[in-house]
Structures are given as C-alpha cells and as structure tokens.
C-alpha cells in the first residue's frame, strides 16, 4: 500500500460526515457499550476522512485501546469488519487489527482460563491471525510501518506457539525491518520491533534492530545533548540495551569533539550510572567497558580513590574476580590511607584463597590485617580465616593460636566471629573433624580437583550487597542440574561462612536453595555454598556482602 492519494479522498467533507454518521449509527447497535461515546464517533470519522495511511495509525491505535481496555475483542473485530465495508482502502489496517485482536483475545482466554471458548474457537482465531496478518503484509510494502507491525505480530504468534514457522517468521521480520529502514524516515516501528524482540529474550536480534534505530535517529541531526538525554531516558525506562547503543554513539562523538578532561568526566558519570548499586538498573560489564575506555584515554592516574574503588567493587559484583582483585590491589597501593583499605585487603585475601586458589596470596593479605594493633571487623575476620586455613592444613596448634588471638582481641565484641572461633577451638580440643560443610567447601575450593566448570553450575546471589546492620537479606542459589526428566534429582546444600541466624534455621538449610538472614556487626560477610548431587559434588560458589 502506498501513500498516494485515492480519488475517494476528493469527496467533500459533507458526504464524509454523512457516511460517518450512518456508519456510527449502524455500529452503535452492535456496540451498545460504547453508546454516547463521542470519542468513538470522532475516531470513526478520522478513519473515514483520512487522506493518507499515515493519518490512520493514531485513530486505529486509539480504537484498539478503547476496545482492549474492557477486553471487548469480538466487538472490535465486528467493528473493524463493518469499517472495511465502508472504505476499502483501509483494509490492510483492518486486517492487521483483526489479527492483533484475535492474538490478544487468545492470550486473554488463556490467561483467564476461559477454556470453553479457547477450545471451541481457538483454531478459528489462530487461522484468522495468520490469514489476516498475511493479507496485511501482502497489501503493504517496505514504506509502510504496518508492514513491519504485521510481520512482528506474525513472528510473535509463531514464537508463542513455538511452531515450525517461528524461525522463518523471525528472519522475515528482520529483513522487513532492514528494508523498511531504507525506505522510511519514521524510526519508531524499528524501536518497537526491537523492544518486542528484547522482551522475548532475543537479545542479539534486538541489538541488531537497536543499531538500525540508533543509526536512523543519528542521521536525523540529533545534537550531542539530545543524544545524551535520549540515552538517559532509555536508561530510566530500564531499556539498557538501547541506552547503551545510544551512549556508544554519544561517547564516540564527545571523545572526538570535547577536550580530554571534559570527555573523561562525562565517561565517569556514565560508568557510575551503570555500575553496581543496590537499587536501579545496572550493567556491570558495560560500566567496566567505560572504565576501560577511560583508562585508554587518560590512564589509571585519572581514577581517584572513589572511582578506583567503585571499579573494583563493580568487577567483584560482576564476578570478574581476577580483575577485581587486581584493581583492589591497585587501590590499596595507591590510597593506603583510605578508610576502605582494610575491607579491600580482606576481599583480596578471600578472592586469592578461595576463588583463585592462591593460598599464599590469601594468607599474606589476612596476615597484613591480623598483625594490626587495632581491632576492627576485618582484623577479627582475618584471624578467623587464618585459623581456618591452618586447621584445614591440619596445623592445629597454629590454628588454635589464631582463634585464641581472635578471642583475646574481640573480647566481648564481634559475637558472631567469637562464636565461630569458639566452635573451631572446641573441634580442635575434642579432636573432632572440622564442621562438615566448612571442610567440604575448603576441600573443594583449595584443592579444586573435583570440579569441572568451577563456579559455573551454581549461582549465588544476595538481594542486596550493601547492607545496614540488622537489615534482612535474602541469599538465593540456582544450581544447573543436567536434565533428569521426571526423576527429580535430590540436591544437598552445604552452606557455610557468615550465616548468622538464618530463616529457615540452620538445621533445615541442607535442603534449602535459599535463606534469609541479617547481621548485627559490620564487616564483609562471606557466604559459601557447595551443592551435592547423587553423583557427587555438583559445584561450589562464594559471595561477599558488605555490612555497614
């Protein structure tokens, strides 16, 4: 369908008005719910009087909203069919909206479990969707947004059905959007298609379309600030894919046009926007990409203590532990007086010992803290970690020494660490083995010979990584278990570390993939997990939470 004017459009306004009035009178009989609704009259009039296709999108969309609002799907189909009898030129729109209505109606029936209609009419509606959408596609072309929307709808339908045509429909959609982008100046359908693909989890394809969309909006002479604001708006809407695509273009521009210092300052702002925070949208890897760009542009020296710490923390939360450790080391060396140095040193110790399996590096960092005169949460926790490492190596005297030093330093404070240390001392004194969960974690983490794809088959996440004392936090795990059909695999969850008072209680935790807890004392809390399947150890993981 083209935008060429049809002789029909040359009719006088008076005739159009009479037709609209007559049509509306007919429609009101079938649409009693809309009686007296001036909006419906007005939209019908707009459709009938439209001179180009471009004028049809808005009234049709508004009509859809009116009918869909109350789930009046059959009524809308009747209305659309009556409408097409009056004006043949609008048929592609009518077809598209019939397909869309039946598609929404089927979804509604499934959602509301209105099964009688679903089973009696399902096939008819499905046939209508494919036939009407195809008719709309056949009657339109690369200049029409409707062409893209009908393709999009057809793909959604086949994707939902997971049928054999889904792949072809996706390929048709992608090539249609590509052709459309060359023929049309309105980029919105491209974005809408990309949004929909993203909502269906088609990240790669949506990214392709967002790129086309971005190239369209850039070619429309958008200024730098407008580009930045557009990217920011998409960030606020939670569409990070699109936001990042636009920021990429924006950054490319400002790196070339602005003085280095100015560009770097903007880059830092964007990195902070995407870096880990408890609330809001994060894309830690994108933030790191920006940090790397800053390093390329202005060197490591351009990072002050806030930014270098943020970069390390962000990498830690992205579970890029090797890089996180390196940046923490850099942070400690460059800003030894910073208040977060102890925390960073403790984290380096944990990452080295239990993630990178470099016990010497881990121990060195714990020793640095343990030898301090002061008594801080990190000094206490490091003494405990040193005790654990020695106990695991069966150097029990040394282990006991560390635990006793912890008791001596902690006095009445740090009750959580005290309780754990006392328990370990008791084990040594009674010649008992170390608690099973801790020992298993240490065995798996420090030897590491039993695992394939270490820390890849077990996710570990906290609802929040920056906590206040007493605030409840949910710890959840997700184990990737190979298919076992209807024979469910019983998993055993060996939790250890800084668990505190858990919900469910510790005794029931072995069958629970998640728990909730809270902490009375500040410091970095370490959560360890090993999951056992009937065939042996499935995987292990570790996570760190900062309590203030």
């Amino acid at each position, binding site marked *: 369908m083209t935008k060429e004017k049809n002789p029909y459009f040359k009719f006088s306004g008076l005739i159009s008005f009479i037709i609209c009035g007559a049509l509306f009178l007919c429609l009101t009989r079938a649409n009693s719910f809309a009686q007296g609704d001036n909006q419906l009259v007005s939209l019908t009039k707009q459709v009938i009087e439209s001179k180009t296709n471009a004028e049809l999108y808005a009234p049709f969309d508004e009509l859809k909203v009116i009918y869909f609002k109350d789930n009046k799907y059959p009524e809308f189909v009747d209305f659309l069919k009556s409408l097409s009898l009056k004006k043949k030129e609008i048929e592609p729109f009518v077809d598209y909206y019939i397909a869309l209505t039946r598609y929404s109606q089927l979804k509604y029936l499934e959602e509301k479990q209105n099964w009688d209609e679903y089973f009696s009419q399902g096939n008819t509606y499905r046939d209508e969707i*494919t036939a009407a959408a*195809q008719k709309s596609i056949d009657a339109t072309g690369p200049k029409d947004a409707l062409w893209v929307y009908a393709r999009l709808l057809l793909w959604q339908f086949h994707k939902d*059905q997971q049928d054999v045509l889904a792949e072809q429909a996706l390929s048709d959609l992608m090539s249609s959007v590509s052709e459309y982008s060359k023929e049309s100046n309105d980029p919105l359908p491209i974005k809408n298609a990309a949004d929909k693909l993203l909502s269906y989890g088609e990240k790669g394809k949506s990214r392709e379309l967002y790129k086309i969309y971005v190239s369209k909006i850039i070619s429309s002479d958008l200024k730098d600030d407008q580009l930045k604001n557009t990217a920011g708006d998409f960030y606020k809407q939670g569409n990070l894919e699109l936001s990042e695509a636009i920021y990429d273009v924006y950054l490319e521009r400002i790196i070339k046009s602005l003085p280095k210092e100015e560009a770097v300052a903007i880059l830092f702002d964007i990195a902070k926007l995407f870096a880990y925070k408890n609330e809001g949208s994060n894309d830690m890897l994108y933030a790191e990409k920006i940090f790397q760009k800053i390093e390329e542009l202005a060197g490591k020296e351009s990072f002050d203590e806030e930014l270098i710490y943020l970069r390390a923390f962000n990498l830690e939360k992205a579970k890029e532990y090797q890089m996180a450790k390196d940046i923490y080391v850099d942070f400690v060396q460059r800003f030894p007086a910073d208040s977060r140095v102890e925390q960073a040193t403790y984290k380096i110790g944990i990452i080295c010992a239990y993630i990178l399996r470099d016990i010497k590096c881990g121990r060195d960092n714990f020793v640095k803290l343990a030898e301090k005169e002061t008594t801080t949460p990190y000094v206490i926790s490091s003494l405990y970690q040193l005790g654990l490492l020695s106990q695991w190596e069966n150097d029990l005297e040394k282990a006991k020494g560390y635990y006793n030093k912890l008791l001596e330093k902690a006095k009445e404070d740090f009750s959580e660490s005290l309780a754990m240390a006392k328990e370990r001392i008791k084990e040594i004194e009674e010649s008992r083995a170390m608690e099973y969960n801790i020992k298993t974690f240490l065995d798996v983490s420090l030897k590491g010979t039993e695992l394939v794809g270490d820390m890849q088959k077990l996710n570990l996440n906290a609802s929040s990584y920056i906590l206040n004392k007493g605030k409840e936090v949910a710890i959840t795990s997700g184990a990737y278990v*190979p298919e*076992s059909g209807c*024979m469910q*695999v019983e998993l055993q969850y060996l939790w250890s570390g800084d668990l505190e008072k858990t919900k469910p209680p510790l005794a029931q935790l072995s069958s629970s993939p998640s728990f909730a807890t809270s902490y009375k004392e500040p410091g970095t809390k370490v959560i360890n997990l090993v999951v056992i399947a009937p065939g042996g150890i499935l995987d292990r993981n570790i996570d760190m939470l900062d309590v203030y």
Partner: protein
Amino acid sequence: MKLSTNNLVDGLKATGRKFLLAACSLFFIICFLGAAPKPDKIYIKKVRNGHYQLIVNRKPYIVKGVCYSPIPISANHEYDWWSDSANKPWLVDGKLMQEMGINTVRFYQGHENTEEVKTVIRDLYQNYGIRTIMGSWLGFWEYPCPFYGDKDFQDKVRKEVLEMVNLYKDEPGILMWILGNENNYSCLGQVNPWSTDEIDKEPDPQKQKAMKAKIYYSYINELSKEIHKLDRNHPVALGNGELIGLNFAKEFCSDVDLVACIIYRGKTFGNLFKSLKATFDRPLLLAEFGADAYDAYLKKEDQNMQAFFLESQWRQIYENLANNKEGAGNCLGGTMFEWSDEWWKHDQNSPDSWKVHDTESNWSNGSYYFDIKAEGNKNMNEEWFGIVALSEELENGLNKRIPRKAYYVVREFWKNPNLNNNKKKKAENSK
C-alpha cells in the same frame, strides 16, 4: 513297445492328472501358508526429502498412542493386571481408546505371565486395531542395579530382552521394541548411578561420564543388532530421556532404527526435532510426554490445563511428521503419558496411600506454567496424568473410567489436525 493312440491318450491323461494333483497341492499349500497369521512387515522409510515415515502394511502409519498401565485404585505397580481375565481392563480401555482414535499402546515392560501378555496384545489388536509397542526397562529399577558395566548384568538383561522378542515377535499386533526409558540419566550419575573399577580410576568427571555413555550406548547397540537377527519385521527404538547423551549414541548406537524420547517441555517441544536431526539423525517417537490434570497452586483438578498442553503438543508432533515442508519431518508420532491415573505413585511404600488420590506434587517443571507458583514450585502431580480418571465406583469389576477433557480435545485434533499454518494452506490450495 508300440504305443497305440489310446495308450498315448491314456498316458497323457495320467500325466495330466498327476500334474493337476501336484499343482492343486501346491496351490493349497500356498493358500494354507498364506492363511496363517503372520506379522506385518513394519519398517521406517527415509523419503526423498530426508524425512522419515513409519510404514505398516505398506502404508504410512502415524503413532497416535498412549502409555498404558491400568493399575486399579488400591494397588501399586506390582499388581498383575495382565492376569485379570475376569475383568479384562484392556477390553474396556481398548474400546474407549478406539473411540478416541488411539492406534497404539506402549507397555514399558511385559510380564512373566507371557501367555496373558499375548492375550492382551491380541485382544487389543484383533478387537480394536490397536498395536503394541513393547519395551524393556533394561533392569533399570532392579535394586541395586543397574550395572551396565558388569558382564553378568548385561548377559542377564540381554537374555530377558531376547526372550521378549522371541515370545512376541510373531504377534501381529506388535509395532516395535523400545530399549530402556530414561536410563541414559544414570550415565550422568544423577539418578540410579553406577560405575566400574576402570571408571572410578578416572579422575576427570567429564571423562567418567563419557566412559559410562560409551558402555551404555554400545550395549544398546549390541542388543539392537541381536534383535534384528531374530526379528526383521519390527524396528528397534532407543528409549532416551530428552536428548541427553545422543552425541554418544551417534557414535556407538548405529544399529538402532529410531529414538524414543521422553520429553516434558510444557506447551511444545521447542527445538527438539531439529536438535535431534543435528545430533543423531534418526526418526523420533515421542514415547512419553503429556501433562497432569491437577492444579497444584489452586489445589483442584484442572482438566482444561491438561487438554491445553496436550492439544498443543500434538499440534507440534503433526507439524514435524514427514512431508510437512516447514517441519523437521523426523517425527513418527507419540505415545502420551498416560491412559489412566495411577493412585499408587505418590508413596509406593504405603498401601494406605494407594487408596487415596494424592494431591501432593512430586516434582517441579516450570514449562507447565499455570501452577508453577505452587509451594516450592512443585507443580507436577504424578497421580493425575491420566487421559481418563478412575472412579472408586466399580463398573463390571473395574474402577469406572471417566474420560477427561483431553480425551475429547485430542480426539477432535486427530480428526481434524489444524496446524494453523496459513502458508501451507495457501500452497495446498495453489496445487
């Protein structure tokens, strides 16, 4: 000796009589042999486009099947229903199945009362035209088995399998053999784990799994070869949970004719058909699939939910049959799980619970999304998978069968398999 004309005529007559007698005898022998019942030649044909068709009696055959295990209320899986000659549940079920359009039943394994098994196969076939897929668990549920790496265990199972083939191969109702069910999961060590000394010495868990898979699939291949020697008339299927391990089957299992997959993926089977083609290009029978009829979230029976899933699953099976241009063309049909509810399943060790239709869910599967919000996400109710429900009320000595909605919905689908494929219709119309 001079021969008169009369003598010559007499001689010719006598020779003619002998010839006629011999010809008649030969004719009667042929007729007699022809009249004796013999199994149809059943085979899989690879058609020109690379698609697969199951051929029965020289005609394509779509398996419209159901897994059949008619355990009555108050009994468990050990109950010998095969010997229930008083009530013959298969006759009641066979009639209902025939009315629904079912043409095949799948038995996971036969019974030691082999004559009774033959009776069931014959009754179903002769009365209702329903063919039988006969399977073997391959010792999967024998305690403390399985030991697929153990020669004695292998020999024991081999003997049982070959006995089964010998016993039933000449039954006209037999359609094919299925070896195992979800036994492949044991190679991963997640369920019914087994090992050998050699495997235990291997420190790399991935290599251990590969070693087990090699042993298991090579063994299946041996069985398949031996079955083919005994019986050239029926295909042999490899029973397999999902597609797990089929990369090994490709290497070690070249003599199986098809793969019989057990799949629970909710509304459809996703990319199963194409994945199989890429992994191990064999025809596919959906040997176990379906949905339960209990909403574990709302805690009530939901026949519609079951019907919804089954209709959608059958639609995808049909899309992937041979000669559907858009489909993978490697599907031969399916056997739904299952014909009737089994009330013993929730707690097989507690006879009291066999009298109760338990509503506690046994396992979780997010693809069955209507009731996934149930406690602990446990939404699959093992006792509620029947296409027909069982009533405690007895009818002719059997628990009354009450067809669920899925019975009618699938029946209608089979009568008019609408694939909602507009392109296909257009192409067909243009022919």
